[in-house]
């Protein structure tokens, strides 16, 4: 038996590949220590959540670095330090999100019930028991308005955006002037502030239909202006990801370019396109200013996007705070309810995007 196999059999001899290491839970214990120390300091100075967490960081970072530096080596110490810093950065980035969600949920959950969703505001009725005049406080008009306006905007933007992307990717030669022009215009459109889009739609409809031409359609046009460039860019990206090999394989079978695009390229990219479109919708669904300008706001139910002011959830949240009714508390809580509904709607949209992507994704399983 050779020496090598001998050593293999009897690992009693120290493994020369090991280096000095901190015990397994050292990081956790250090963190707890830093936390206790921070709490103790807080005991002297007075309590504050933010300061507690900040102090914990301040104690923990040098402590873990020094500990590791002494017990392990320089590389590991640096690794632990940077890892901790990255985690802190991640938590910092997460903080506003969690804080916003928490505020919206805690303030909006109180008013969120079936009545809020299923009735519209403004409609006053007499309570038969007390004979008092109560005004209902629902958000139905805003839910319907949001769905109709974003739905219409999607209906306008997706065909225009997808066809533009197809032109840019499949048809335009790289240096052709029309392609450069379209690219430039899409870039310009991407940068248009949403209020300008609102102004555009408002003045367009005022020119066409005369003064006070508020309508859901007008708001949908404003949103389309914002949505089209996003849709163009995401579809373009997705179409470019389709390998040229697939197009060539199709051409080599004597398939025309048009059929290749419709039956090969788009199906291959459809998951990404669907995700991109859903994210574009999620982005414009929260727009307030352009809708406020183009569709104004209202408490009464209006399901006709062709005429009359229309309410949407973000506008409802805004007006509930800015122009409260006689019952200020009620208006404010309505605003929070609308905000919560909006957040829920966006979450649902994101889930839908994921599901669509999953359904359409090219299948590679055996």
């Amino acid at each position, binding site marked *: 038996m050779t020496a090598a196999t001998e050593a293999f059999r009897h690992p009693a001899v120290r493994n020369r590949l090991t280096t000095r290491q901190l015990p397994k839970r050292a990081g956790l214990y250090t963190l707890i220590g830093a936390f206790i120390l921070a709490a103790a300091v807080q005991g002297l100075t007075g309590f504050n959540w933010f300061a507690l967490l900040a102090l914990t960081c301040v104690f923990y970072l040098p402590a873990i670095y020094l500990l590791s530096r002494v017990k392990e080596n320089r590389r590991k110490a640096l690794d632990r330090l940077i890892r901790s810093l990255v985690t802190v950065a991640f938590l910092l980035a997460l903080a506003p999100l969690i804080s916003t969600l928490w505020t919206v949920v805690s303030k909006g959950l109180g008013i969120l019930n079936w009545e809020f969703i299923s009735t519209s505001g403004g409609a006053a009725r007499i309570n038969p028991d007390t004979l008092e005049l109560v005004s209902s406080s629902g958000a139905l008009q805003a839910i319907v308005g949001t769905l109709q306006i974003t739905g219409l905007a999607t209906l306008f933007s997706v065909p225009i955006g997808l066809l533009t992307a197809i032109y840019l990717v499949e048809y335009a*030669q*790289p240096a052709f002037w029309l392609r450069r022009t379209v690219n430039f215009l899409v870039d310009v459109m991407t940068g248009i502030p949403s209020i300008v889009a609102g102004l555009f739609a408002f003045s367009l409809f005022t020119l066409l239909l005369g003064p006070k031409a508020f309508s859901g359609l007008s708001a949908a046009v404003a949103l389309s202006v914002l949505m089209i460039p996003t849709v163009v860019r995401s579809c373009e990206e997705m179409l470019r990801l389709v*390998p040229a*090999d*697939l*197009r*060539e*394989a*199709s*051409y*080599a*079978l*004597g*398939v*025309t370019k048009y*059929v*290749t695009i419709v*039956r*090969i390229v788009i*199906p*291959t990219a459809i998951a990404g396109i669907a995700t991109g479109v859903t994210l574009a919708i999620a982005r414009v669904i929260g727009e307030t200013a352009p809708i406020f300008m183009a569709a104004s706001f209202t408490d009464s139910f209006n399901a006709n996007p062709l005429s009359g002011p229309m309410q949407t959830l973000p506008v409802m949240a805004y007006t509930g705070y800015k122009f409260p009714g006689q019952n200020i508390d009620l208006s404010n809580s309505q605003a929070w309810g609308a905000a919560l509904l909006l957040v829920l709607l966006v979450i649902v949209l994101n889930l839908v995007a994921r599901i669509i992507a999953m359904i359409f994704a*090219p*299948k*590679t*399983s*055996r």
Partner: protein
Amino acid sequence: MSKSNGVAKSISVKDLNVYYGEFLAVHDVSIDIAPRSVTAFIGPSGCGKSTLLRTLNRMHEVLPGAHVTGEVLVDGDDLYGAGVDPVTVRRQIGMVFQRPNPFPTMSIKENVLAGVRLNNRRISRSAADELVERSLRGANLWNEVKDRLDKPGQGLSGGQQQRLCIARAIAVEPQVLLMDEPCSALDPISTLAVEDLINELKDSYTVVIVTHNMQQAARVSDMTAFFNIAGSGKPGKLIEYAQTTTIFNNPAQKSTEDYVSGRFG
């Protein structure tokens, strides 16, 4: 094996220059390919074999800026004449690519039928099933996939994918079949199967095959064309075109002999 829907065609290339934009990739090639024969293109990497092959069914011009000068006659008709529709050309001249490229959204069966379906040709269910089996058998893939025809084509191994692409190409029954290193991803058994297939195809099709495998060229081809390149950035040229036995046993050019005997390249 299926008989092709038309007669095999001859190909005659005259003074062909092939460009990528400004860059001349293939210089002044003239070559006559007989119907019902197998012709092998051999030569070092980058000498323009794939490029020349792609000009034979007008796939070359799919790339922006790519163009040719000169003539390619298929049974006497100019491929690059005014008013020639590349789509019609490609329906008659099929191609198998260097890298396998099955359609990811389609099942194995749909991949084989892609050429028929995408061209909106009506085909009965039983005829489709028969065509699928015939094509897959032709590409020596049938036994491996017959139980999972409805599974995605991309779930196959690389070599299986390549044979699927061959099945897809022969399912449309072209008159000429261009193959760009069809066996570079295959194991010896599948390679042999593809070579058998080529031998059968020869009865009804004209086959042009690019290969880096000298034995393969010697085994399957009737005629062999040797291409070479003077240096990087220089255009590829046809050095010698003759009977395969001549190229391998008694070439006229020194560089051909060096290449086929493995002394360079």
